[in-house]
Structure formats: structure tokens, C-alpha cells
């Protein structure tokens, strides 16, 4: 922007700048309580930034010095000698797999739930029950979900989802079962974000669609869902972040095998029926807090994990900054 040209008559002596109180002076006239409050707000923000910066810097220093390209391409092996124990190819693939399974299950259910809650809500009692159900799932610790999942998926009629041992004992641990429980922790985020997106759309937009003779279903499909696409994407990416970062479900429901272990001989399906590990369980098992075999590799893997999560956050920012349609209310 260019400054407006001064008027010819006044160009000789520019008008004096308007007097403004400096923010600092303004705050000095505040009551003491308000000034303490303001300083606390500043302190809280800066402290959070310092903690985040500290974690990132520490992980970068510890992680990068142990990070080798070979770590990405070698499967882990249970060796005491750290030079032979391989990399984290399998945990990396496991993270990708379990995120994919969890998201694929959570996405359609979450979007459908949000649409039903926001657009239909009938009967009212059921809608309230679904709402509190979603809230309860959102508040349940993932370790509880994991134990619950183990009980469910060890039932014999879920045997097709995981390894069935001798004597018809169902293991209940596989990418399928862990992914299904992971879907539960992503679900509330997708439901919440989609509902927020739908609530942003004013009612007259729906009525405009009905007014050219469209049904509710057509309106949802062609107007409402496209309008809240950024919101749905945000919820999904946030959900993926939760799945990637979760450890309890992996440890309990995926088994602790270092490498991907297939069950059955159908390509792809056999991997999903089998067990494996993810970056989180790899970090846990290798860190000094866990089995403590190789903290170096734990740091490297943790650094990769952190990078993935930061990248996802960046993606969320990009999506939310993309313009959602704006109407006058």
C-alpha cells in the first residue's frame, strides 16, 4: 500500500501525528490485579514456547546424531549388539499401516455420525445418547480401549481378524484389531470437526437448495459436505496425529513383535491380520524406560516421530487457512 498523497494546500506543513498512548503507559495505569494477570498471560505463552522449543531442540540434537539413512531401510532384529540390531523400517511401516486402517474406519463413521447428529437428530433421545457416547469415547484413556478391544477381539467369532492358535484360541492382536480401536480415538475428533463445519453453514443455504427442489440427501451430498471439506480434513488429520502418537493400543493390541509378521497367505490381508510394531512401541521398547537396549535408536525413532507429528500439524494449519465458504448469516 502506498501512502495517500498529501493535499496540495497542506503539503508544506504535514499535520501533526495524532497523539496515541503507548501500550506500556496504558498498562501502567491499570489496576494491579490486571497487570499481574497480563504478566501471567505473557509468562504462560512464553513458557509454553520454551518447553516446546526445548523438546524440539533436545530431540533434534539427540535424534539427528544417531540418525542414519540405513535406519530407514533395515528391519529391526533382536540382537544385543547394537551394530547388528538393524533399523526401524518395520515400525515405520507399522505406523503407516495402523494409521491407514484406523483412519479408513474412523473417517466414514465419523462423518456419517456428524451429519446425522447435525442434520437429522431424530429421535432426540438417540441423538443425545450418541453425543454423550462420542464424548465418553473421547474421554476414555486409550489403554482402557485397548483392554476392551482385546476382550472383544479374542472372541472366537472375530477369529478371522487375527491369528488363531492351536485349539481355537484367538490371539486378538493384529493390525485389524489395533486399527479398529485406533479408529475410536480418532472418531471424536472427526465428529467434532465435521459438526463444527456443518454448524458454520447458515440455514438459508440449506433452504436455498430445498427451494430449487432438492431433497435433504442431495443437499447434504452436493452442498453441505463440499462446504465443510476443510473442517472434515482438519478433523481427519488431527485424528491421524492421535493414532500415530498412541502407544497403549499398540503394545496391547498389536503384539510386541519387532518385525511385521504375516498370518495366512493372502498378500496384503495377511499383513493386516498379522502383528508388528510402530514407531511409538519401538521407542518404548528401546528407550531406557522400556527394555533399554538401544537408547540411540530410540532417540532417532522419536525424532522421526516428532517430525511426522509436526508435519501433520503443519498440514492442519494449511487446511484451516484454506478458505471455507463464507456466507452472511
Amino acid at each position, binding site marked *: 500500500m502506498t501512502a495517500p498523497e498529501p493535499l496540495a494546500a497542506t503539503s508544506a506543513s504535514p499535520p501533526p501525528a495524532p497523539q496515541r498512548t503507548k501500550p506500556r503507559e496504558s498498562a501502567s495505569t491499570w489496576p494491579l490485579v490486571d497487570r499481574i494477570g497480563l504478566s501471567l498471560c505473557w509468562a504462560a505463552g512464553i513458557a509454553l514456547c520454551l518447553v516446546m522449543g526445548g523438546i524440539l531442540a533436545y530431540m533434534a540434537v539427540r535424534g539427528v546424531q544417531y540418525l542414519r539413512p540405513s535406519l530407514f531401510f533395515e528391519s529391526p532384529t533382536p540382537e544385543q549388539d547394537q551394530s547388528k540390531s538393524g533399523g526401524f523400517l518395520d515400525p515405520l511401516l507399522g505406523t503407516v499401516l495402523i494409521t491407514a486402517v484406523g483412519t479408513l474406519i474412523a473417517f466414514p463413521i465419523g462423518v456419517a455420525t456428524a451429519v446425522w447428529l447435525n442434520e437429522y437428530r431424530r429421535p432426540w433421545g438417540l441423538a443425545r445418547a450418541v453425543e454423550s457416547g462420542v464424548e465418553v469415547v473421547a474421554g476414555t484413556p486409550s489403554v482402557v480401549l485397548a483392554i476392551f478391544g482385546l476382550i472383544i477381539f479374542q472372541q472366537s467369532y472375530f477369529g478371522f481378524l487375527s491369528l488363531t492358535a492351536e485349539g481355537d484360541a484367538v490371539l486378538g492382536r493384529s493390525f485389524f484389531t489395533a486399527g479398529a480401536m485406533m479408529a475410536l480415538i480418532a472418531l471424536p475428533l472427526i465428529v467434532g470437526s465435521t459438526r463444527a463445519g456443518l454448524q458454520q453453514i447458515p440455514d438459508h443455504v440449506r433452504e436455498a437448495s430445498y*427451494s430449487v427442489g432438492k431433497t435433504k440427501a442431495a443437499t447434504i451430498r452436493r452442498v453441505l459436505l463440499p462446504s465443510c471439506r476443510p473442517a472434515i480434513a482438519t478433523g481427519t488429520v488431527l485424528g491421524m496425529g492421535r493414532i500415530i502418537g498412541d502407544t497403549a493400543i499398540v503394545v496391547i493390541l498389536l503384539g510386541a513383535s519387532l518385525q511385521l509378521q504375516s498370518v495366512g497367505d493372502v498378500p496384503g490381508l495377511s499383513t493386516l491380520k498379522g502383528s508388528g510394531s510402530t514407531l511409538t512401541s519401538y521407542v518404548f521398547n528401546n528407550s531406557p524406560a522400556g527394555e533399554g537396549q538401544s537408547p540411540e535408536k530410540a532417540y532417532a525413532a522419536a525424532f522421526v516421530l516428532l517430525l511426522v507429528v509436526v508435519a501433520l500439524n503443519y498440514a492442519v494449519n494449511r487446511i484451516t487457512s484454506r478458505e471455507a465458504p463464507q456466507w452472511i448469516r
Partner: protein
Amino acid sequence: MPPPIKRIVVDREPRVVDPPPPGPGGNGTATPGVLAHSPTLRRRHSSAVAAVERMAMRELSIAYGEKVAVNSVSLPVRQGEVLALIGPSGCGKTTLLRSLNRLTELTPTARRWGQITLDGEDVDRVEVTHLRRRVSMVFQQPNPFPMSVFDNVAYALREQGARKPKRPALAPAVQDALERAGLHSEVADDLDRQALRLSGGQQQRLCIARSLAANPDVLLLDEPCSALDPISTEVIEQLIVRLREQVAIVIVTHNLQQAYRVADHVAFMYLGDLVEYGPVEQIFHRPAAKRTKDYVGGAFG
């Protein structure tokens, strides 16, 4: 000499406008009396086609729960002329308008009595999506859908949620609707641009084009200019006057000048009652009811 002081007189008797001189239809551009000094010019001219009744309300009442919003209103809606609904806020104008294409049914507490007919057929007997294609509505706020200009207009032409028929098959109909809404020359160079990137006035004309694409018999306009600037308002008013020969038009407006400019018949509503219905000259110049006189006089006096 000091500048003249403007006096504001509270509780003054509302001034009633003089009746127009006897003349053919009274459709001159300059009207004597107060209107001559106001920027209110008639856009109307005698319609080329004779007015044909398309819709009729008989003893129409609508209530939200216990609150009666529309009380036993009977009105005709004619093609070839514009019917304006005027009245203070909360008088039931918009409710009446929304009942014409059964949008009131979306409000769970709303109940309706009386009869509404479209070409002699009870609207309750017409399948609702079919009815809404024939009686289409444009809203107060411009609300194009988040898709291209072309797809917005084509939306009304396609079957429910379908994306087909594809563009070539629909292009003539879309162009026709955009031309009727007076928007085609402004958007013809790029029909793929996002509709929400248009200006407010263009968005509103796009919404009119979207409604016109389905070839409705009746077009309902709910304060279509209240979110727009004066120039866009003028363009849309001219459009309304032009369109009235093709479709029957009902417009709800808070702007009495606008009602005067575009309407042929005016219905004045107050607290759910239809106080007076008649040609625009009667309502604005020779109102029969005291309440009409007060309302119209208050606006113009």
C-alpha cells in the same frame, strides 16, 4: 444569519400522501406530492401481458406453537405482475412467503391451516420437491453454493444429487437462465470461477438465475436487496420488473420505496393480519385502512 435549525417533532401526526391525479394507470415517472421530491421513481410500466392468477391463498393461517404468525389471509398471486408484501417486522410476511413453497414445514412447531393452490391444485397434493421447483425462493442473504458459477445454475437442472448431465448438454439452459437474470454478460468469460468470489449483487443475481433455471411458475423473493448496495439494488429491481411477465413474483420487503418502485399489487400485513390488499396506487395514495395510512404515511411523510 445562523443556519436554520432542523426541528424534529416527536409524535407528529403521520402525513398522508396526496392522491395522484386521475390518469391512465398512473404510471408516470414523476408523482406529485411528497414522492416528487423523493428519489422514488416508478420502474413499472403497464405490463404487456394480462395478469393470470397462478397461486391463491384461502384463509391461510400459520402458527408456531401457540403463536399465530399468519391469521386467515386470502391473497391471489398473479403472473404478469409483482405482489409486494409489506408490514412491520414480525408481521408474518416472511412466514407467509415461506409457506407458499412449504418451507414452513421444516420448522417442527409450525402448523398451517387453510388452502394454498398452485394453478388450482392444492400444494399439499404436489410432491414437495416438484412444488419447490415450480415455486422457487430467493433469500435475504446471497447464498450461492461453494461451486462454480456454471454448477450453481446447473444445480437446479440436475437430478437430485447427480453430477450429470454433463456440461455441454446443460450449457444452453444455463446461459438462458444467466441471461434472464441479467448476469450473463458479466460472467460469460469465465463460468468456472467460484460463485462465492462474485460481488454481493452478482451473487444475488446468480441466486435468481439458479432459481430461474428450473423454470419456476412463481418466484418468491424474501427481502432480496436488504444485504446489497443501492446500485445492485437498482439492477435487481429492474430485473424483477422485467421478469414479472415470465413468472409470477412475490416480494417481501421492508423498504416501502422499493415496494412502490417494483410492485403492481401490495398487501399490507400487521401482526399476522392482512390489513389491506390492492393496487400499489391505492395502498400508497388512497389507503382505506387507518393502519395502512399510518404505516405508509410514516414512511413517506
